[in-house]
């Protein structure tokens, strides 16, 4: 046995975590999303099967491949029409800086997509710079304002998030600045824990009435989304559909966060790949697949992940972390400030501290200046365009004139797990495992 052999159980990370708890008396809290090293089935376990003799591909960059995305066709008088199926997810002003919120809104608008408010309510500048704005109604109801709600193009009733299903939000005192405290009606500098449950409803039956209330409040004009953190996806999606959702958002275990207990990020909920498959099955089971639209979130990195999610049944994807990375999250700039946080570029997950080296997840005016709104917006626009090109490229190669025509049949599984989860034959066999 080598002298310096490390334990496979008490790894350096585990040792550090135990000592952190012994020192502080508190569990670990951080931002970003799961850091788990052990792998589980992901979109990487699937590969596309482009056309050869059985099907005819479309001419890349020439033949039309539509990316128009319609959401909210079930009940809303004014469904949302987006140019692309990649949307910016809800991230709160509070977790994010003002500059980051406005840059996301501007970038999404320029790319013909949407952005979503977040815990803490709407910023006026966010509305002014958005083309399509989705207004979140969260359990905390921070900043809830009916006038803002009625300016929105859709309402998202949030039940949970993938990074921390079954718990509420967190914003540590360092980020509860004067402006954030005022917007959220809180004392300045408190460690704000927001509730896990809505204050005026409990179960799915109440939610049916709540959805009707939101429709009445917006005159049945705009779509109502229901967002759930992926845990019992099959049942939850059916209940959300029964409650009258136009659109259901399912956020998988890989979902990002501004601040959550790390055990929730690592050990709760189910991964996004399984979540999209269960969600589709649920909608098919109640005969609403295609009528209720599905948005998938959680660890979507590029057009490939997005295309695979769409092929498995999603109508669109939400991106959070990828958008922040587009704004320079984890980029090797201001190295001394990463170091001051005890971290480094590519390994930073310190959004909860409020000391984001690149000005994204901070309320500090000086740090925030490091994110130029227009430059950030341009990067978001570029990212959304590039992701859309990737989706189109894959769709054309599979012979699709509309990215929404991608289907499970266009893919093969690379692992038995993925085959069993997605109901797709394992590459090299004609067999779906587990069937």
């Amino acid at each position: 046995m080598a002298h310096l052999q490390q334990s496979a159980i008490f790894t350096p990370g585990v040792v550090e975590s135990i000592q952190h708890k012994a020192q502080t008396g508190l569990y670990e809290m951080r931002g970003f999303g799961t850091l788990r090293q052990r792998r589980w089935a992901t979109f990487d376990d699937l590969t596309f099967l482009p056309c050869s003799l059985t099907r005819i591909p479309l001419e890349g960059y020439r033949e039309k491949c539509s990316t128009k995305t319609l959401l909210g066709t079930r009940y809303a008088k004014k469904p949302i029409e987006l140019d692309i199926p990649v949307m910016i997810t809800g991230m709160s002003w509070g977790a994010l800086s003002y500059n980051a919120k406005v840059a996301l809104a501007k970038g999404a608008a320029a790319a013909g997509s949407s952005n979503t408010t977040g815990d803490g309510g709407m910023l006026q500048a966010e509305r002014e710079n958005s083309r399509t704005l989705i207004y979140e109604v969260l359990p905390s109801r921070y900043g809830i304002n009916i006038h803002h709600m009625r300016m929105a193009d859709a309402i998202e009733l949030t039940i949970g998030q993938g990074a921390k299903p079954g718990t509420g939000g967190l914003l540590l005192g360092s980020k509860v600045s004067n402006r954030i405290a005022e917007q959220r009606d809180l004392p300045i500098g408190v460690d704000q824990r927001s509730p896990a449950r809505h204050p005026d409803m409990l179960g799915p039956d109440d939610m049916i009435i709540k959805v009707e209330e939101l429709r009445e409040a917006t005159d049945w004009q705009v779509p109502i989304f229901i967002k759930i953190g992926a845990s019992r996806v099959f049942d939850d999606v059916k209940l959300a559909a029964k409650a009258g959702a136009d659109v259901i958002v399912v956020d998988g275990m890989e979902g990002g966060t501004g601040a959550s207990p790390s055990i929730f990020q690592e050990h709760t909920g189910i991964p996004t790949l399984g979540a999209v498959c269960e969600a589709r099955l649920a909608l098919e089971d109640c005969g609403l697949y295609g009528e209720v639209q599905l948005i998938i979130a959680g660890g979507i990195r590029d057009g490939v992940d997005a295309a695979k999610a769409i092929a498995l049944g999603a109508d669109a994807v939400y991106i959070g972390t990828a958008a922040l990375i587009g704004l320079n999250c984890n980029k090797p700039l201001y190295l001394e400030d990463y170091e001051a946080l005890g971290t480094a570029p590519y390994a930073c997950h310190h959004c909860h501290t409020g000391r984001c080296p690149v000005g994204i997840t901070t309320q500090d005016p000086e740090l925030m200046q490091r994110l130029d709104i227009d430059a950030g917006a341009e990067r978001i626009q570029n990212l959304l365009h590039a992701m859309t090109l990737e989706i189109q490229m894959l769709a054309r190669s599979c012979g699709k004139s509309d990215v929404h025509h991608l289907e499970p049949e266009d893919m093969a599984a690379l692992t038995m797990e993925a085959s069993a989860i997605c109901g797709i034959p394992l590459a090299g066999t004609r067999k779906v495992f587990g069937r």
Partner: protein
Amino acid sequence: MTQLNAADLSTRELNSRLRDLVARDDAEIHVENPGARHNLAVAMLKSGKIRFRGSVGYYCGGLADGISIEIDGSAGWGLAESMLGGTFRVHGNAGNGAAAAIRGGTVVIEGDAAARLGVSMKGGTVIVAGDCGYMAGFMGQKGVLVVCGNAGDAFADSLYATECYVGGEIKSLGTDAVASEVTDEEAAALESLLAANLAPELRALKPQARRFRKVVAGRKLWNFDKREWKIWREAL
């Protein structure tokens, strides 16, 4: 005064009519036969007066700004939830989560309130002439919550800065809630608040309401402190 018969109208039709009438500055609208229906008078955004001549269901007057609503019967869950401004008066009782997450305005409940009264309040004033159920004031952020009668279990749990007053017995205080005597100044302010909002005979129903106690946050949950781990274990 305009009269509408809810029995003849769907919720959508009734709310549209109410919104139109309120927009036209119709001073007073009476709604007959509300039938404890849910989502009545949601998001009324102008001043004006709506009187329900019976009981209403969930979320009556939810998301209001500026309206004055009077309910002759009782109200279901989430009365006036997330209101920005306006006044509500319920002659009967109110269900769970009355005045949840309100940011302004006044809610007066002349009977009793059920569980989670004023939960996540962010402003405004809530007055209950009778008793309230468990977890009233939970995570209250701002505003004033007054219960003239008795309060249930876990009163004012995990409070931020809502000022809470109870006239009767408090079955148990919530985590980090601290009760104290009211100062003369606070007693006088309470007296005039109640005089302005409750008829003398209602105030007389609860004679103990002369011995109000104030409940505020002990602030031990405001910022994590490892020396307070017992209280945090309960709270988290």
